[in-house]
């Protein structure tokens, strides 16, 4: 039982503290109540005074009307400001979406260009062109053509969706692809799901300056790709220049490597 004493005393102490706080709070409430009562009395007196004196009453009325109209004006001002902020906010949101899209497009173009110039191996370059056309453009059936310098004809060297041999060869200037390469102009039909599968819907001429290097002929887009986007057109332009340079550089490099190996072979033969 003696063990319970400290806890009883503790609880009593707690209760006392609580009671004191309650008392203080009640005092505060009473004081506040008194203050408010006095305020009401003051106001009532003021009103009674104003009611007795029509001049004072008019003055008070004027003051109140003026205050109301100034508050109305302030409210209207806030509403207009809020509306203009909302409009500004919407403009920012739209601009953000635009910039985001632009950023994505630039990233795609950067990746395409980076990959195209990441190798000097011709087969790798062609593989990268295929990857770009599949993954970034979304083509299902297409071929990469290279100009055969002996025959001056465009021959399909790599493709997707069908064997390269199934794509026709073109002489420069003839057929939709040959004409596009000869003129250097990108040919693009809207849609991308043509009736005639043998005719390309997109022809991207690959040229280094005025020299034709090859072409990309897209015959059909992936099922989920409904139409060409502005990014696709940007990619076609990029491919037209960068893929051509990449193919051209890889060809030059392979030729110079071949020559270097031949010369090295002769040197080795003479020096051994």
């Amino acid at each position, binding site marked *: 039982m003696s063990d319970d004493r400290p806890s009883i005393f503790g609880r009593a102490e707690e209760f006392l503290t609580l009671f004191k706080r309650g008392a203080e709070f009640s005092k505060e409430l009473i004081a506040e109540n008194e203050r408010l009562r006095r305020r009401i009395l003051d106001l009532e007196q003021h009103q009674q005074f104003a009611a007795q004196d029509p001049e004072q009453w008019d003055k008070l009325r004027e003051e109140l009307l003026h205050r109301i109209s100034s508050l109305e004006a302030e409210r209207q001002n806030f509403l207009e400001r809020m509306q203009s902020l909302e409009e500004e906010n919407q403009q920012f949101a739209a601009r953000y979406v635009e910039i985001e899209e632009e950023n994505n497009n630039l990233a795609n173009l950067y*990746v395409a260009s980076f990959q195209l110039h990441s190798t000097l191996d011709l087969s790798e370059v062609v593989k*990268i062109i295929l990857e770009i056309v599949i993954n*970034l453009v979304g083509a299902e059936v297409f071929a990469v053509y290279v100009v055969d310098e002996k025959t001056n004809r465009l021959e399909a060297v790599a493709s997707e969706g069908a064997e390269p041999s199934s794509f026709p060869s073109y002489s420069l200037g003839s057929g939709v692809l040959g004409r596009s390469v000869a003129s250097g102009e990108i040919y693009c039909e809207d849609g991308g799901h043509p009736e005639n599968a043998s005719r390309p819907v997109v022809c991207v001429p690959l040229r280094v300056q005025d020299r034709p290097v090859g072409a990309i002929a897209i015959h059909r887009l992936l099922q989920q790709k409904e139409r060409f986007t502005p990014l696709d057109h940007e990619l076609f332009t990029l491919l037209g220049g960068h893929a051509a340079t990449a193919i051209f550089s890889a060809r030059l490099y392979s030729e110079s490597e071949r020559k270097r190996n031949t010369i090295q072979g002769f040197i080795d033969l003479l020096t051994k």
Partner: protein
Amino acid sequence: MSEKHRILIVEDSPTMRQLLVFALKRLKNVEIVEAQDGMDGLRKVSSDHFDLALIDINMPVMDGLKLIRLIRGEENLKAMPIVVITTEGAKEDRERALGLGANEYLTKPIQANRVLSVAKGLLKIDS
């Protein structure tokens, strides 16, 4: 500082990998690991913890569907969110991938915004 989200990209095309890295790097606090085929992906996913995996379907050595099947067969990897990335847009391909346990299905050509919003959703990252 909040914990880093680890993302695995299993994709044979370097172009696609670079694009996905570009898109996902915009998320805060992420660490991205790349695998170049299904087998490489399986090795990485077995030896390390990942909060999300983006898997291509058509890959050499081991395709994406087989990789998903193997991942979902492992008790400790069952909860890892998987996003499938593919050229196949047909409904049955989508259903097959989702049926194997993929959480999301994205078709090519890939849009960075879509990748980001899917990744944010699966990683439970607020916009």
